[in-house]
């Protein structure tokens, strides 16, 4: 079955969505990612959507779910690379992606993840997810 690859880099998981996903593929990514967060004890997830020409309510919901699930599993999620036309359309559609952290590109997303992880180490055992 078709799958979106999940790469591990240090404490983080990287996902770059390069294909026009049908709904089942989006759901399997959601499941695979939560699995991998637990197995790899990742501290963060970076999702690159710069190739996506369309983010509809289903994909938007998937991004929100991943962010919420990873938060519960003690990892931060950052969505990077959203195209301006996609952002405009999402807001008009009525989807503001509440609870999803974003950054303009992979580089900025990574440094944001590192900052968040460093902050949590200072606080202690990562119970700042609230």
């Amino acid at each position, binding site marked *: 079955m078709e799958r979106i690859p999940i790469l591990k880099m240090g404490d983080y998981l990287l996902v770059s969505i390069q294909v*026009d*996903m*049908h*709904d*089942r593929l989006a759901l399997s990514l959601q499941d695979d990612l939560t699995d991998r967060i637990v197995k790899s004890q990742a501290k963060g997830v970076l999702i690159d959507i710069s190739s996506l*020409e*369309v*983010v*509809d*309510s*289903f994909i*938007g*919901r998937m991004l929100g779910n991943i962010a919420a699930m990873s938060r519960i599993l003690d990892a931060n999620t950052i969505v990077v690379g959203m*195209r*301006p*036309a*996609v952002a*405009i*359309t*999402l807001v*008009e*559609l*009525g*989807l503001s992606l509440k609870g999803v952290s974003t950054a303009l590109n992979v580089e900025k997303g990574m440094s944001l993840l590192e900052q968040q992880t460093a902050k949590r180490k200072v606080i202690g055992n990562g119970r700042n997810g609230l």
Partner: protein
Amino acid sequence: MVATGCETVPLRSGEDVVIARQVVRRWALETGFSLVDQTKVVTAASELARNTVTHGAGGKLTIEGLQNGHRKGLRLIFEDQGPGIPDVNRALQDGYTTGTGLGLGLGGSKRLASEFEVRTQVGQGTQVIFTRWKG
């Protein structure tokens, strides 16, 4: 107003929704829509095509190129013979869903349209007509 061409896409599965997005994108490009407008039309097509598959038990999409004087546009007609929508006004409200979605599909798509019409009869089916004009 004249129709300058048309194409039909079957909507039976999740894969068909992906194909519908791609075909609508091609039409939006050919109509000369800006990138933002292309994105809006394709996003609405995705929402409405999914509705046809999940709520309407499948159906079809007809895409029409439109010309009104110098103005160009695109009309998307989603048709199914499913259960119909008992309360259209309620279905158009954000957050109202009978499925597992966010309830943004119908109302959200209406906001992305220049003209939007829902024709439905309980037990007969539903027709959603989405029109977007260029510019």
